[in-house]
């Protein structure tokens, strides 16, 4: 019977995320606003201007090697923070098994931030969802369309000032109103039982 030899290279445990945060602070002192440590989950809050350079550095540096973007999303801090949105990047290194969270602040007026699709291909749909739900534009995104809602939907549903129950029927999505209208028109052709 053939025996397949499996070789697993076990890399040493990764860097403590507090030290990674220190390193980011050292290299980009102007960009880092705050480092938050909540139950050993380290977040680095940064300005949005150099987010691409910082994430590119974290991805490329052989000591950190953040080769996996676990998640990309946004948070709406309406009336809680001066800069309304934060785009959140959860990074993970498959090689070293360490992780860190980067949060980039984005202002309310025409919110936009650099795309990270050139770094992690998987960010493509995450950024589309983020645009769909929060209206944050990702500059340089290869396909900046909505992903979940219909393309002619108005508004961004996960914003805190969006009504949970959605718009009133007369202002509802045109596709849905057309279905209701068509179902009324076709009613006369039903074979009533």
């Amino acid at each position: 019977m053939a025996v397949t030899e499996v070789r697993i290279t076990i890399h040493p445990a990764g860097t403590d995320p507090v030290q990674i945060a220190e390193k980011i602070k050292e290299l980009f002192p102007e960009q880092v606003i705050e480092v938050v440590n909540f139950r050993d989950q380290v977040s680095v809050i940064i300005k949005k201007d150099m987010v691409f350079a910082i994430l590119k550095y974290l991805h490329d540096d052989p000591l950190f090697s953040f080769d996996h973007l676990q998640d990309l999303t946004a948070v709406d801090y309406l009336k809680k923070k001066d800069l309304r949105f934060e785009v959140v990047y959860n990074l993970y290194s498959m090689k070293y098994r360490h992780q860190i969270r980067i949060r980039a602040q984005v202002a309310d007026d025409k919110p936009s931030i650099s795309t990270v699709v050139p770094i992690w291909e998987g960010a493509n749909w995450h950024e589309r969802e983020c645009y769909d739900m929060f209206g944050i534009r990702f500059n340089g995104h290869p396909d900046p369309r909505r992903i979940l809602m219909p393309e002619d939907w108005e508004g961004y549903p996960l914003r805190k000032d969006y009504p949970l129950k959605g718009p009133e029927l007369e202002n509802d999505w045109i596709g849905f109103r057309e279905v209701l209208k068509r179902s009324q028109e076709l009613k006369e052709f039903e074979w009533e039982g």
Partner: protein
Amino acid sequence: MIDTSAMGLIQVEEDVKILPPNIIITSFDKIINWGRLSSMWPTTFGLACCAIEMMAAGAAHNDLDRFGIIFRGSPRQADCVIVAGTVTKKMAPVVRRVYDQIPEPRYVIAMGSCACTGGVFRTYSTVQGCDSFLPVDVYVPGCPPRPEALLEGLMMLQEKIRNEKARWSPWR
């Protein structure tokens, strides 16, 4: 009225008389409704977790086939549609299009709380009950309904078909 008592006809139940050994006299309604309710083919429209229960109802343990209920992939050869799951506004035109393709006479079963009323999803994206754009015949509540509940819903629809008067006919 023809007096049939002298012809040797035996009434076995309402509207059914037999002339031994092998002549049966009955009404169109009775025979056609019987045929239709005994081979009711729903088109599959699984939208959410209710679809899993619908599949379970069709699988070996509950076995819809024994009632002549066979899932049909094409709405054009189906008799009814089981709307199994949450109908979003984006999906509503698609559900309606599938329903429009079913030939008359046709029926709709709304399966689960979401299809009946929108359920817990009182939100911007969810249709608050698919009866807003479909004529629903049977509502099956539950989240999701057990296969037995769906079976009861289908039995109710069969009962409805059994009592119909000439709905099968285009020249009523």
